């Protein structure tokens, strides 16, 4: 059975840009709850949201997300 999980550096990248969860949510057009659940690894975002997050943080999707075994 596959045990991979989606790891992310969203919290770190957001912190480096001095953005609050609410500010990032506003930039991406989602609720703060969504940012929170993605950061905590509770929710796996869609490709669309991942691309929007990358654009808002001015980085690549791979810089935010990675597959963790």
């Amino acid at each position: 059975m596959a045990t991979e999980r989606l790891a992310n550096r969203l919290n770190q990248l957001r912190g480096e840009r001095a953005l609050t969860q609410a500010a990032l949510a506003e930039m991406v057009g989602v609720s703060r709850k969504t940012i929170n659940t993605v950061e905590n690894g509770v929710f796996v975002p869609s490709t669309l949201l991942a691309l929007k997050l990358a654009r808002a943080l001015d980085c690549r999707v791979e810089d935010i997300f990675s597959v963790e075994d």
Partner: protein
Amino acid sequence: MSQGSNVEEADRLSRRRARMLPVLAIIFITQQAAYFSDRFEGAGAAVRAVDHVKIGAWVILSVVLLLALTTGGFWFKSREVRALLDDEVTRAHRAAALQLGFIVTMIAAFAIYLLIQFEPMSARDSIHLLVTIGIATALVRFGMLERRAHLGD
């Protein structure tokens, strides 16, 4: 209203919804318990006018709760706020809640199907029970998932 304040308002309303959904489920179930206790006490008796009112009230409440579950509710808020209240995570939570509601309803339907061999139950009561179980389960699950999503802020 700016997008920033929309995010704040959506956050506040989302927390309120997460708190309210399990409470609504309890109120909903409690009302049905009263309905069924009256039904069993008066088994065999003619349907009274008050029963029609109760059934009508139950239908209205069920439809409102079902609409709130499937659309996200907050119908009188702005389109922007409603979009934030119905974003990706919320839609995923709703789908999971409705899925569980469906599964529990099916299990309850099979249980009723077996039980009516020993204890007859009218079609109306069976439907009443199934709809109540399905909606209440989905409400509780949706509320739990939403509350969990707000943890760890």
